[in-house]
């Protein structure tokens, strides 16, 4: 319904929330086979200054001629001028990114999505359970916890990878341990030189003595892994309200208007990717949902 007659020409729609912003790659660090971390900063100084993100959120990365894909931030949210994305070269965009070098430009828009509830869970023991590249969106949590170590109780990091060579951020593990993170690493497939654990990540729960009254579980990884993590956590009487899950769905617009990332009543790009398990329980595990 029109209230007044607007001008005959009418407004010109701009790119709106779909506008992508050039950002320059300032460092590339190889993490594992076909996985690297890209540190980028916006070309526009004002944007660089204003940009902030929370642990668990994602950006839409774009390359002209290739397209867009959602990638979580893996860097320290306290230093948002330099944004880190850990990328596995698996698809069209990520493979194209693998051909980029320091100084090249990619498009970025964001941040989008929900974050790990870092304030809300202060005082808790944290049990971070993750596999594969799922550690990337949890690294900002670790940085935050290390910055504010006193605000959290015991911190367990349970991390599984396919093989020892697939482990991300290995060079940081020692420092994390020294700062009081209890690190449990496991691999699905070990070579004889591996002295650590073998087996899937959820099996690491058997090594822990968790206090169900004050433990919060944060988990990210393949959905099937999350299933087992939830199972183990619930078996240890950790309430589902204190299990947080980062979900993967097909996020295309990032702003809740394209419909692709629906998960029951939720848009994963908007209300997710981080959900308390209690919010998604009715739909989690429904076949092909």
């Amino acid at each position, binding site marked *: 319904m029109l209230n007044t007659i607007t001008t005959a020409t009418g407004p010109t729609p701009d790119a709106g929330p779909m506008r992508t912003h050039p950002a320059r790659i300032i460092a590339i660090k190889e993490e594992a086979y076909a996985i690297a971390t890209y540190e980028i900063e916006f070309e526009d100084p004002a944007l660089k200054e204003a940009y902030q993100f929370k642990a668990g959120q994602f950006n839409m990365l774009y390359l002209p*001629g290739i*397209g867009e894909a959602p990638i979580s931030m893996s860097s320290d949210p306290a230093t948002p001028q330099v944004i880190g994305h850990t990328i596995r070269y698996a698809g*069209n965009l990520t*493979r*194209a990114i693998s051909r980029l070098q320091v100084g090249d430009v990619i498009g970025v828009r964001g941040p989008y999505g929900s974050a790990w509830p870092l304030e809300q869970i202060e005082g808790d023991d944290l049990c971070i359970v993750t596999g594969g590249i799922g550690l990337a969106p949890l690294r900002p949590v670790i940085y935050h916890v290390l910055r504010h170590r006193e605000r959290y109780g015991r911190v367990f990091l349970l991390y599984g990878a396919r093989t020892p060579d697939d482990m991300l951020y290995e060079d940081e593990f020692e420092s994390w341990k020294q700062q009081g993170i209890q690190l449990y690493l496991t691999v699905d497939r070990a070579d004889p030189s591996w002295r650590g654990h073998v087996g899937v990540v959820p099996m690491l729960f058997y090594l822990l003595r968790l206090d169900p009254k004050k433990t919060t579980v944060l988990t990210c990884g393949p959905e099937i892994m999350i299933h087992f993590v939830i199972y183990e956590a619930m078996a240890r009487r950790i309430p589902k309200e204190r299990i947080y899950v980062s979900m993967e769905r097909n996020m295309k617009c990032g702003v809740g208007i394209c419909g692709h990332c629906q998960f029951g009543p939720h848009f994963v790009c908007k209300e997710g990717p981080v959900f308390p398990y209690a919010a998604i329980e009715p739909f989690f595990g429904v076949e092909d949902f």
Partner: protein
Amino acid sequence: MKRKIKPDVKSKPKLAVFKFTSCDGCQLSLLDAEDLLLDIADAVEIAYFVEARDRRLPGPYDVTLVEGSVSTPEHIEQIREIREESKFLIAIGACATAGGIQALRNWRNVDEFINIVYAHPEYIDTLETSTPISEFVRVDFELRGCPISKYQLLDVITALLIGRQPRTPTYSVCIECKRRGTPCVMVSRGIACLGPVTQAGCNAICPSVNRGCFGCYGPMEAPNTDSLGQRLEALGLAPAEIVRLYRNFSGYAEAFRLASDAYEEKIA
């Protein structure tokens, strides 16, 4: 008369176009990209394209387009050699991806066919069947259609030049049909249409000219040919008509083949 062949200075990706049994229409799509033909020639080195040029550069080729179906014993050897020489091999068109209209022979006796057409059958050397390229070698990408869409072809070439995996939709023709605003010919006129089981890519031209889709882009992802077949019967099509409808330019593609075979059994 001297031949003036300008050498290509810089190293550009090499494109080759090969033909098997076909009508030439799909490779013609490249020449039909009139506005962009010279741009393509600038962007890639057209190393082998007999329809357009005499020059034939040896492989390896970065991108190879293969038109036509395999229908003679020599073809099998040739396609294997071409595969060896090709980094990225694209089968273009219904002949190369499904055997083409000439795959209708696959349901019949070829000797009888030869006798119908030729006075001296002993001169003809042909296989029993006309089959897609993928029956014999690995195919990196398939462009469907009879003929292919030149827009899809350009998109694929552009994608490869830019470094993107080409991707074409695998959903139904109906999506394109509705995007262009054509009222469904089956619902509004009772015209038999394979659109709901056929892969998009043609921009739903047939319904836009008031006729049903006859499936030249082949089966869509997970086509429900059973359900559509029931609907076609309800519209009054005899099983023989349904057989003919499915057994068309991409009729030898598995899902359509099975659907037509099922209706043929009904007749028998």
